[in-house]
């Protein structure tokens, strides 16, 4: 394995560089995936049949909390990568644990929010609007859930193998994924919740 010492650890080998490049291609596909879900939502948003519309069920409080938590977790995973580049494994793992904890709190709020909607008679089968809403939010939530499991798996590997070309590469790719989830949430926050409450 040829190692390029002038590059940060996660870019150090050709395989590492290819993996990061490949993950960016995957994120391109993810942009297309979420674009279709947003499209379905925008087309169906006014088809709330006899059920409630967005203005009736959305609450700004929990949504602001979710946004704040996700933006903060995006910041802490950024700090984790920064600590990684300084070779500070302990601090890096601390920041990753904080990130995952914030992700878990975000999911908790989202699940509570879903329970509230269903309690108010807004289920996935109530109207086309709610079907598309739950599909969009649920897909994002499923991505966060997957991210939590992925992050934990990486923490275990960091503990076991320390910081090397392989674990640094995995951690960096995970950080890309996590930032991307934040980007998707920004659009949900703006064009689902704020627009719905307008």
């Amino acid at each position: 394995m040829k190692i390029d010492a002038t590059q940060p650890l996660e870019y150090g080998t050709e395989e590492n560089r290819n993996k990061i490049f490949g993950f960016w291609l995957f994120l391109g596909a993810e942009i297309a995936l979420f674009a279709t879900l947003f499209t379905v939502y925008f087309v169906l948003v006014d088809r709330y049949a006899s059920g409630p519309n967005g203005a009736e069920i959305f609450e700004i409080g929990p949504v602001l909390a979710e946004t704040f938590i996700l933006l903060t977790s995006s910041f802490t995973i950024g700090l984790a990568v920064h600590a990684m580049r300084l070779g500070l494994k302990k601090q890096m793992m601390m920041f990753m644990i904080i990130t995952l904890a914030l992700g878990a709190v975000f999911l908790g709020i989202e699940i509570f929010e879903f329970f509230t909607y269903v309690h108010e008679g807004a289920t996935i089968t109530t109207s086309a609007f709610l079907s598309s809403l739950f599909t969009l939010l649920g897909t994002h939530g499923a991505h966060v859930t997957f991210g939590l499991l992925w992050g934990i798996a990486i923490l275990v590997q960091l503990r076991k193998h320390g910081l090397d070309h392989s674990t640094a590469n995995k951690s960096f790719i995970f950080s890309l994924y996590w930032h991307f989830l934040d980007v998707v949430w920004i659009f949900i926050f703006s064009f689902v919740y704020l627009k719905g409450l307008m």
Partner: protein
Amino acid sequence: MLKQLFPIKHVVGYVASLGLTALALVALMDLPEAVKMAILVVTAILQATLQLVLFMHIGESDDKRSLYINIFFAVFVALVTIFGSLFIFVWGWYA
């Protein structure tokens, strides 16, 4: 140590992202519809750009040209999907 762990660039980016969220809330005030939408579009694009450039370091690798092309193409596909469908199904440009 604190200064080493919290680089100023990241802290400024974080504060800016919170500021943009606060700014987006202006859309809930009593303003013309077009102004509200303009605020949402601008703040969302700025937030996404901030994440992409500052936190995801899109411009740092040797492949950056290919990465920019890939992301621009993905965004192009996304916009065509969204606005193409809106034109047909919502805004009635099907004639």
